[in-house]
């Protein structure tokens, strides 16, 4: 089996999941009028289109239509099917009108369809994995690249500028924290922040008086990486999460990215260290090409080959962390449906095997394919 077809299926399920499993019918005739509820619902949310009041608050399962074409699975992940409350097994007799409305993967304790939640899980896993790897990749490439390219000796500043930079950074930290403290609505603080920014820009363009000293970029960044790596990922995540009072999915994504950038940064650093001493980079430096352009155009494309491998592994790691969080019931906003949160219910109802088998299988499959992809990329690179 080709790996890429699996990814196509996953991406399709993630993007069009709402078109496959939805309590809203695809097309319906209600009180003599035609509706396309699934397509129209975003417009209704924006207020561009109006629906009858029964649609707005109504339970779609209990409405009677003159005619309707359902989606493949006529339940949303959040839909509560009152006829099949309390853990209906997939093989058990279910109280549904026809085979169409059957719960093919059973229901959970409050009567939600497991299959449609399972399909929603693809979107959750994919978006959390993708976005966290994207953010972690940006952080990792930037910081790892700085550490690798400049090393301990190439990042040179005059003593005066280094001092100014240090003071400026402390000040910037102060102003930002003061901004948070006053909820960003104090005018004098805003003026100060603006002045601080201008001062920073001006000091950047100051002439270089006096001797230059090398700032040990590599040492500083490696220290930070070492510090973050010393804490096991899940522990760190659990330590950071309570800082956010009501965590949303995006907070979780950022936190996972914050934990994952170190692995990418270490690899980028090693690659940059290797490539920066190659002859073509040295000649580019002799030609006085801007450092940023050297890094971006000449080093990074060369390092990218091995970077994709870590991206694949980080993706898998992010999916696993998200599943852990969902399973432990910590951090994810309540009511979020993901594979982990579905599996969490098994802890209370150990006899409901279908809540463990299917979501777990999806996690296993995505991890397996990502690992396999990483392995293939590795083989390609070597």
């Amino acid at each position, binding site marked *: 089996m080709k790996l890429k077809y699996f990814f196509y299926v996953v991406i399709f399920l993630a993007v069009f999941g709402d078109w496959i499993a939805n309590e809203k019918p695809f097309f319906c005739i209600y009180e003599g009028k035609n509706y396309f509820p699934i397509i129209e619902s975003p417009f209704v949310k924006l207020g561009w289109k109006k629906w009858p009041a029964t649609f707005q608050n109504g339970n779609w399962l209990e409405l009677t239509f003159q005619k309707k074409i359902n989606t493949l699975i006529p339940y949303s992940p959040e839909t509560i099917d009152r006829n099949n409350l309390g853990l209906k097994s997939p093989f058990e007799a279910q109280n549904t009108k026809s085979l169409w409305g059957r719960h093919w993967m059973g229901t959970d304790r409050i009567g939600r369809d497991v299959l449609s939640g399972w399909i929603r899980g693809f979107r959750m896993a994919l978006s959390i994995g993708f976005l966290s790897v994207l953010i972690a990749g940006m952080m990792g490439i930037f910081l790892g690249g700085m550490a690798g390219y400049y090393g301990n000796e190439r990042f040179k500043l005059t003593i005066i500028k280094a001092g100014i930079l240090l003071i400026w950074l*402390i*000040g910037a930290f*102060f102003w930002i924290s*003061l901004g948070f403290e*006053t909820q960003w609505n*104090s005018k*004098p*603080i805003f*003026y*100060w922040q603006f002045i601080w920014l201008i001062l920073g820009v001006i000091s950047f363009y100051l002439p270089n008086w006096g001797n230059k000293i090398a700032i040990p970029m590599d*040492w500083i960044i*490696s*220290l*930070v990486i*070492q*510090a973050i*790596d*010393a*804490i*096991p*990922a*899940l*522990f*760190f995540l*659990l*330590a*950071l999460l*309570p*800082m956010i009072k009501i965590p949303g999915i995006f907070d979780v994504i950022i936190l996972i990215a914050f934990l994952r950038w170190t692995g990418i940064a270490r690899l980028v650093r090693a690659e940059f260290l290797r490539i920066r001493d190659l002859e073509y980079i040295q000649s580019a430096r002799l030609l006085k090409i801007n450092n940023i352009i050297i890094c971006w155009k000449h080093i990074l494309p060369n390092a990218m080959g091995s970077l994709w491998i870590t991206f694949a592994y980080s993706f*898998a790691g992010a999916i*696993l962390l998200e*599943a*852990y969080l969902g*399973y*432990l019931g*910590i951090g994810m906003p309540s009511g979020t449906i993901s594979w982990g949160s579905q*599996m969490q219910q*098994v*802890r209370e109802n*150990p*006899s*409901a*095997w279908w809540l*463990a*088998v299917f979501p*777990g*299988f999806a*996690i*296993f499959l995505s*991890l*397996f394919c990502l*690992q*396999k992809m990483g*392995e293939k990329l590795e083989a390609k690179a070597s």
Partner: protein
Amino acid sequence: MLIYLVKRISTLILSLWIISICLFFLQKNVAGDIVMLQSKSRSNGQFYIHPLAAEKVYRAEAVRLNLHRPLFYFSLKARLIPDTFYQIQYPEAFKIQKELLLQSGNWPLVQAYFQSLTNFYNKVDQTENSSLSIFWKEKLQEVAYLSDLPTIKSKLKVPKEMELPFDVECKEINTILSKLSNTTPSFFDWFPIPHWYGLKNQYHEWFINIISGDFGTSTRDGRLVKDKLKEAIPWTLWVNGLAIGLAYLFSFPMGILMALLPKRIWTKWINNLLLGLYAMPAFWIGSLLLVQATLPGDRFSFFSISGWTYLQQNGGFINQPIPFLLQLSLPVFCMTYGLAAYLTGYMQSSFLKVLKEPYILYARTKGISKFRLYFRHVLPNAILPQIVFIAGVIPALITGSVVIEVIFNIPGMGRLLIDSMLSQDWSTVYTFVLLVSCLTALGLILSDILLVLSDPRIRFSATKNEGT
């Protein structure tokens, strides 16, 4: 070599110190009102003290918990905030006074305002006229927790007959209030001014305590964190130790076997199988096993979800080795198979890598026996990276064991962490995270040292890299 070691260890200590600072501030940020929590847990949730009079009680409690000190060695605060501002303990008073201070920018005036309020309250307290005193007490308690000056003024506008006995105090408060509403912080009042507090601060105390082995008490049930850890650590060690041991025991022969087998199509499938095993999340298999264990019938009669307390009380491994190991078998299996699969693949690839080395070719041309070749020349070199790998595995294993412990209800460190989190026992959580990260860092450095000691080539390049 020595220089490399010293450098490595000093950066490690530095990074652990940074971690400890981060965790300390996280704890302070997250924990909320520790005094209230403590008092609640000591008095069974019945904690009510009168506002205005509350400050004294609260302060005494805070002093007992050493919370009356500054947070850190130094602070950076706007000029209008005095350097002794942290001394205000009562959170509501702190909030109101800070709001008033940020509005007016005049600390002596704010202090004078609260002083006059307290004086007023004390005077009201001494009067005999009960209706008057009740009226004013309620009024003052209401006003004391307001920060909006116009509303305070409107609240203090009372009928003449009520105001008359306390004429002087009312006038004083009103003059201070009008002064307060006339002043605003100047532009330069917002400039940051550093303050140095010295060693008598909360962080220093916490850090010294942890270094000297005193991990404090849990804010939830008042037990020593040390005792909690002492109970939990053996379980985690048992599970992780058995998992690592079994995984190595399985993966060494399997890896060698796989490396020596001729390449056929089915070896590829075995590789895929190993990858699949590795990708199977342990908590999935764990919950499936749990489903099996709790189904009716005697499938896993040796395992019971509540069997841990029994083992704990009856002396664990020493007194009852067989029930103990049987009880551990399911969680250990969950943690072992993935690691074993990974290590097998790793062993195989490193064995094959060593086989391609020129010195192996040389040994072959010498005509030594295959057995001798594999076990004298290849194996020691192939095992080396595996041994070093163990330290890198430990953090991932600890992470995995958290979920496994939660699933199988093992009273180990992972479940302690999750339970403490869910019951908001932050002092345990953060002390615990710090300890685990110390252990992990030590493991990482140990693996580095092992690697450097065992391989002269790495030793040379490590010193060289550090030198430039």
